[in-house]
């Protein structure tokens, strides 16, 4: 882990000095996380792509003035979150001038990029069942589950990202897990073949 971090720090320094290969390497390391996270926040693939593109172009153009970041992934995810929420608010302003909260933004995303792609994937896999159980959570619950179990952030980092206090993060994760468990138990497929696989939820 340490050597990995050092490697990243090194890359970051090289990138800051104008090394484009290092920049490309940073992109390669983190793009998958960014896309997966972005898809949770943004329903429009085009907007997501544009914002990731902008994020990296701004990084490149502003590289000379960038601080040394402790955790690249956290820095990138945080920047992307900020961008996507702003993009979403901007889009909403065109629709109505009502007060817009983060929760509204989450709610209005019904058909997301990911759900389309899920359909193309193997339908009856166990993972898919869990995925479906996650996808009917509130957007905030979905976000926190991803940040914790996929992105692997600490509760402190999640608190900073989602602008909550530390204990609320833990509570939100717990309540999300309860919901997932409930969703799984009411899943029709669950009762039969997958019972064994998901018994751990009980």
């Amino acid at each position, binding site marked *: 882990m340490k050597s*990995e971090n050092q490697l990243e720090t090194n890359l970051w320094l090289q990138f800051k000095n104008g090394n484009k290969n290092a920049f490309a390497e940073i992109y390669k390391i983190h793009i998958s996380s960014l896309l997966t996270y972005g898809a949770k926040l943004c329903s429009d693939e085009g907007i997501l792509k544009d914002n*990731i593109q902008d994020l990296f172009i701004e990084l490149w153009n502003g590289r000379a003035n960038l601080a040394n970041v402790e955790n690249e992934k956290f820095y990138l995810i945080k920047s992307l979150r900020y961008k996507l929420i702003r993009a979403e608010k901007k889009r909403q302003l065109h629709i109505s001038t009502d007060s817009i909260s983060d929760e509204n933004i989450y709610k209005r995303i019904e058909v997301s990029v990911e759900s389309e792609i899920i359909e193309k994937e193997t339908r009856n896999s166990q993972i898919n069942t869990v995925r479906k159980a996650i996808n009917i959570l509130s957007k905030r619950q979905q976000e926190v589950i991803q940040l914790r179990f996929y992105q692997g952030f600490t509760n402190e980092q999640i608190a900073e990202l989602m602008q909550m206090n530390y204990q609320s993060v833990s509570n939100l994760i717990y309540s999300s897990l309860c919901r997932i468990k409930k969703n799984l138990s009411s899943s029709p497929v669950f009762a039969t073949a997958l019972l064994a696989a998901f018994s751990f939820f009980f």
Partner: protein
Amino acid sequence: MENFDENIFSYFDDNEFIKWVTSKSDASDAYWKEWMQKNPGKIKGLLKAKQIAQDLSKAQKPLNTEILSQDIWEKINLNIEQQQAAISLAEYSPRKTNRLMIAASIAGLLLVTSSIYYFANIKTNRADATAKITSNVTSNNLNHVNNTSESRVVYLVDGTKITLQPGASLKHAVFLQKDKREVYLDGDAFFEVAKDANRPFYVYAHDIVLRVLGTSFNVTTNKKNGNVTVLVKTGKVSVFKSSNKNNAEFILTPTQSIRYTAQSQSIVKSESDAELEKADTKAQHVINFDFEETPIVTIFSALEEAYGIKMNYDEKIFSKCIITAPLRDEPFEEKLKIICAAVGAKYHIDNNEVFVQGTACK
């Protein structure tokens, strides 16, 4: 039935556990192996928690990120390359060059006149046009000494110009491929540092260190007592004591100066318009990079001499190449690019030496 297992959740609340299941790490593996040895009764619960966490993680990977990823990178890359192309076009298009040249000449004239204005300490004006800058090309460390009785200009590869007063010397490693620009000064000199935000420029003068990004300033050092005076003309200069390089003692802006007294190790800052006005001197020896109908081989040796960078090329191949290149204050590599472009040659830099390759001119 409705609640999630508290025992399993306690693992999910543990950052070390999350680190273990989300990223590969030998240290983490070792930690949990040891943990399992110490807590054999809890292994079952731990592994269960691990499996749930992994499934929750896998459930997050619905996107085919490969194609999207490539798609986005191509756009980023295109954007960056277009920006760079736009920059080099502005620099190299012949028409623009002409206009730039005129503007640059005027600016240069102003610079020279104003530089003259700021040299307060030159007494002798004896013209010695044949004198050369003493530089040695042999090693990576360059040593410029002004043994003449008039001021001498030293050109650094980044485009920085330093005017050494009689008796002054400047030492530095070739920073063609370095990420720092550092020079050591003894005596008096006027610096016109080329802007390069990525590579701060450091001047070491006795006990004083100056850090600048791109600016012009005058430094006076006294060999006997170690006193240092710095006077800023343009831009900003951070002043450090070499004993404490982390904290700047002062940040100087135009017309401000500091005087460092070695004996008391004290630095005094002052406004110094009065001192600036006393300037009286004649033009310094300036290397002419304005090559008209010049054999490229001659240009190469002029560059070699001015910058102290060894140029490797085949004299036979380039013997018939004659070009006109009105060069000025460009950094070394810019000059090299322009010259090579003129004859379709290519260059690369290795171990602070330049290697030029091309085909014979007709």
